[in-house]
C-alpha cells in the first residue's frame, strides 16, 4: 500500500468526548457521530495541523507512546488512516 498523506480536520471541526473505553467524536461539518477506540483518538491527536503519512505518524506516536518504530507499525497506521478517511475525519492531502 502506498504511504498516502492525509490532513486532519481543521481546528474546531471535531468535538471529542471520551466515554470510558470509547471515544465519541462529533464532526460538526457532517453532523455525524463516530464512536472509536484506541488508537484512533491518539492518531487524530498526533496529526496536528500539517499533512502526515503513516511513517510520520509512527515517529510522532513513538515519541508519545512506548512504540517500536518498527516496520510493522506503519502498515497498521496506514490502514487506520484510510479508515479515518472513509469516515471523513481526515482527508487525503
Amino acid at each position: 500500500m502506498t504511504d498516502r498523506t492525509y490532513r486532519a480536520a481543521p481546528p474546531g471541526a471535531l468535538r471529542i468526548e471520551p466515554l470510558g473505553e470509547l471515544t465519541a467524536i462529533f464532526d460538526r461539518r457532517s453532523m455525524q457521530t463516530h464512536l472509536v477506540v484506541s488508537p484512533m483518538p491518539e492518531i487524530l491527536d498526533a496529526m496536528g495541523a500539517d499533512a502526515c503519512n503513516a511513517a510520520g505518524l509512527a515517529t510522532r506516536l513513538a515519541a508519545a507512546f512506548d512504540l517500536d518504530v518498527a516496520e510493522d507499525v506503519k502498515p497498521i497506521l496506514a490502514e487506520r488512516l484510510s479508515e479515518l478517511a472513509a469516515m471523513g475525519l481526515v482527508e487525503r492531502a
Partner: protein
Amino acid sequence: MKNKLRIAVGPVQFRIGSDWAEPIAALARLYAGYPQDDTRPADATVRLFAARPWRRWLRPSVHIGGDFVVPDALPLPLSMGLLAAEMGMNLQVALGWRRHMLLHASAVAKDGRALIMSGESGSGKSTLAALLGEGDWRLMGDEFTLIDLFGGDTLAFPRAVSLKNEAIAEVAARVDPARLGPLLAATPKGDIRHLIPRADAIAAMHEPVRPALLLFPRFGGEVAVEPMGEGEAFVRLTEASTNYVALGEAGFAALTRLVRETPAFGISYPDSAAGIALVEQLWAEAAK
C-alpha cells in the same frame, strides 16, 4: 376529515382525523381526563384513512397516516382502530419531533428524580413503568421519554399505557376497571389493552425531572444486574432514539451529558415482582 379529535400529551398537541367514528370515540374515552385547549395549533397530525372510498364499509381497513406516512405499511381492521390511532401518534412523534431528544424508553419519577428504562418491545419497560406508576411513583410515559436538549431534564409523555398479553391481567388486578380501554385481541402485537394513567400523573405531565438512573431491562431469565459503562450506554441510547441523528450537535451534547451524569445498568428478571425489587434496590443505591 369527518371525525376529529384533539389531544395534548406532554408538550405535543395532536390533531387526529379519521374516516370512521369508532376509533375517535375510543380515543376520546381514553383521553377524557387530559387537558383540552381547542385553540392551540397542532404540532402533529394523525390520519386514519381508507385506501379507497368503498373500503370504509367493505372489509373496513384502517391505514395510518398524517404528517408522515410509511409506504407499504399494512393496514389494520377497523376492530383495531384504536391501536391504529395509537400507532399513528407514535409514528408522527417518532419521525417528526425535534424539540427534545426522543428515547424509546419508559420513565417514572419519585422524589424529584427520574428513572428511565430503555428497551425494545418485550423488554418489559412498559409493564414495569405501569406497575411502578400504581405504587408511589409518577408515571411519565411507557413508550417514549423526552430529554431536554439544554438542561438535560426528562419530560413526560404519558400516553395511554399499552399493556400486552400477560401484563394485562397483572395490571388489571390492581386498578379500577374504568381505567382500562377495550380488549384488542390477537393484534399483530398480541392481546392489547390500554391503561389510562392516574390523574396525578396527567396533572403533573409538564413538570420536568432530572434523571437519576438508567436501566436496560430484559424480561425473562435469572435475576441479574450488570453495571454499564458510559460508552455502551451511549451506543444503546443512540439505537433507542428516533431523532438523535436529526438533532445534530445538540443531540450529541445531550446524550453525552446523560450517560456521564446518570448511572446505568442492564438488568434481567424472571417476573414483575423481581423486576420491581431490582428497580427499588438500584434506586436506593443511586440516591446515596
